[in-house]
């Protein structure tokens, strides 16, 4: 496991250095890509002159809202659908095909319904994230041990207490997988909507820089998005692994 980590780090560092060398020597032209060191420099400059803050706060706010909504609603819907097996069987094929439908096409309709503000973007982020949470909630609830539920019945716990004190903790590792996917999907939904359709946020700023041949800004912001997503994802990944290990569920890879 340790050696895999070292190989991975070496691989990533090597790739970045190779890219740097290729860009510096002119094998990759600056109109196509700028060296990673200049991207980092550009990003630092964007933070120093403060230009990065308005789009950054806007995007992060939208992602956070979409994420919280999709986790909350996804969990509640999961609980409800889990309690109704008949409904679940009918919904199952639709849920499995859900991500095949491209939601961006509904953006104009969302604008007419919700108005020209951040809400349509949040809704798209939410639509992207909610089903991942729902599916993982169902998966987690399926794996709650019968003996725990029986213990709950013996202790005469009500449905609310059973859900809160038995189902929630027992399904937690699987819920965390749902949370992890929800973050990723909320990011994808929000940034892609900004990219194609809106007039503010990180996605828009990158698209705007692309249209103006402003490669420095474009690549600096790409680097920023990459760093944010990888950071958020690693924190959740470490948390998930720890939880799985505590419960002895970690697959020995």
């Amino acid at each position: 496991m340790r050696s895999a980590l070292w190989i991975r780090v070496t691989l990533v560092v090597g790739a970045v250095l190779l890219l740097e060398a290729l860009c510096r020597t002119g094998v990759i032209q600056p109109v196509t890509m700028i060296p990673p060191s200049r991207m980092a420099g550009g990003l630092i400059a964007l933070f120093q002159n403060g230009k990065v803050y308005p789009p950054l706060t806007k995007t992060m706010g939208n992602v956070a809202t979409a994420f919280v909504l999709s986790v909350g609603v996804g969990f509640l819907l999961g609980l409800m659908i889990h309690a109704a097996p008949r409904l679940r069987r009918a919904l199952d094929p639709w849920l499995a095909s859900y991500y095949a439908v491209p939601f961006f096409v509904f953006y104009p309709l969302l604008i007419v319904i919700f108005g020209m503000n951040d809400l349509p973007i949040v809704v798209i982020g939410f639509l992207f994230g909610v089903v991942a949470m729902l599916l993982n909630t169902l998966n987690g609830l399926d794996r709650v041990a019968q003996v725990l539920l029986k213990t709950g019945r013996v202790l005469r716990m009500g449905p609310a207490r059973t859900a809160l004190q038995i189902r929630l903790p027992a399904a937690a590792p699987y819920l965390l997988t749902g949370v992890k996917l929800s973050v990723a999907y909320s990011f994808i939904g929000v940034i892609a909507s900004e990219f194609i359709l809106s007039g503010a946020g990180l996605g828009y700023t990158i698209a705007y820089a692309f249209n103006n041949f402003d490669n420095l800004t474009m690549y600096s912001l790409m680097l920023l998005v990459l760093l944010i997503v990888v950071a958020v994802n690693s924190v959740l990944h470490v948390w998930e692994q720890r939880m799985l290990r505590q419960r002895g569920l970690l697959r020995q890879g």
Partner: protein
Amino acid sequence: MAVATTSRADSGASRGQGLRDAVLMVVCGALVWQLLHLWAGEVALSSPAQTVTRLGALLADPDFWPNVLETATALLWALLIAGVGGLGLGTLLGVHRLSGQVAEPLLVAVYALPKITLYPLILLIFGLGMSAKVAFGAIHGIIPVTLFTLNAVRNIRPVHLKTARVMRLTPWQALRGVWVPAALPEIVTGQRIGFALTLLGVLLGEMFSSQRGLGFMIMNAIGLNDVPLIMAIALLLAVFAVLTSSGLLFLERRLGARG
């Protein structure tokens, strides 16, 4: 020698019931759509009947088909690259344990990345046109296909492989009798998710910068605020996506239920 790795096949539901459920869900969906139409008004959302009529007119229009062909060609190439490439890459990483361990977290990180941020880079490399769309669709699809194939191959139970060795199967026999049946259900899952994401990638590519294709038509319709046209294309894409995905899901369940 069939080996089941999933046990999700719902044995209770007969096929007739499944069909009735599907019809019921479509009717419910249309009803909700109609209510939304009444609530949001003509400008925001065309009714199901209007949309179907518009779609019929669109399908009869000869100018519409080149756009469909453009998107279909891009999708087909992207699916081919993602499907075959992901399968090969996933198998390699699954068989060679160390490279699998090295690559998996990297692949997961790229999977979570909003790949649209990389689209300008792809446009700068490939230029505007078909190849950029294909490349963008393929990078969306290839990662889930690789990840699922990797796990499918790695999770084959050692006892099955040992059995193959004990029975002195030739490599070809072992592949046909043990490896493929054991890994296939999960590989099909990967292909299904890969299909969904490849379609998304191709459409996103067409929506951001393109001169032809369904994504381009949607962007045009958004510009003109032609709501029935947007809805008609969205309906066409949704029906296509759900049908293809359901077909693959059906296949997956069949394979999973065999053991």
